[in-house]
């Protein structure tokens, strides 16, 4: 090949041609198969275990040691921990 550029349209054509069969590909599984695998309607995404553990450790250790009881920071930590527990 003498020039590098003439191959570019050729490469475009070859890529399109090679991938064309996938354009007509249809999945075998139907909607009913999917429905059977859906989680119950009430199941919301849960907070990962590690996040829950961190929130618990933060609540358990940091608050009593560093923050005086009843301080705004301690209240904030309490609220954060409770919210993580509620959504999990």
């Amino acid at each position, binding site marked *: *090949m*003498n020039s*590098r550029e*003439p*191959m*570019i349209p*050729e*490469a*475009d054509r*070859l*890529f*399109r*041609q*090679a*991938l064309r069969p*996938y*354009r007509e*590909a*249809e*999945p*075998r*599984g139907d*909607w009913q*198969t*999917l*429905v059977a*695998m*859906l*989680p119950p*309607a009430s*199941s*919301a*995404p849960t907070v990962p275990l590690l996040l829950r553990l961190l929130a618990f450790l933060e609540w358990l250790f940091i608050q009593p040691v560093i923050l005086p009881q009843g301080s705004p920071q301690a209240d904030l930590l309490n609220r954060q921990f409770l919210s993580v527990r509620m959504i999990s």
Partner: protein
Amino acid sequence: MEERTVILRLQQGDRQALAWLYERHKGAVYRTALAMTRDESAAEDILQECFIRLYTYAASLDPDRPLRPWLYRVTLNLVRDWSRKRRFAHPVEELMDWLAALAAPIPSVEGEMERSETIELVHQVIDALPTAHREVVVLFYLEELPIETIAETLDIPVGTVKSRLHYARRRLRESVQRRQRSLPELAYEFT
């Protein structure tokens, strides 16, 4: 029906809304997964998992944004997961595929090159590309997305999309040239 309305219904837990979205987008998700994995069974699994995630994470969707890029992102993430598991579960198979891709540019048969062999060569070039490059090739040549949309979907700069396409074309050109050197009588096809 407008997609925005359907997404809002999905966010209320309406399964019929999911059915509507499934019928509308299943083709794009499935063919993208199939082109990336070249495995029908894996593509079926990825299709189902993609829509299960859509149902599970519906609340996090923005109804004012088109859904298709979100589905492409989830599909490609699932393909990456599948590739990782496959590499771990079938190291020998993976090694054989890699060796086959290395050997691909120079055909073992002599004589006339069939059209299908050229297409197979292109597939081998695509398979041998790094995953990130293969994603761009599939979205551009199969899904025919504009470069800007690909950049947005994959969350990469437009220039990166262009350079990955350029790299893929260059790899194909090199493979074709290597094949031509081994089969000079076929050079007319690419000049």
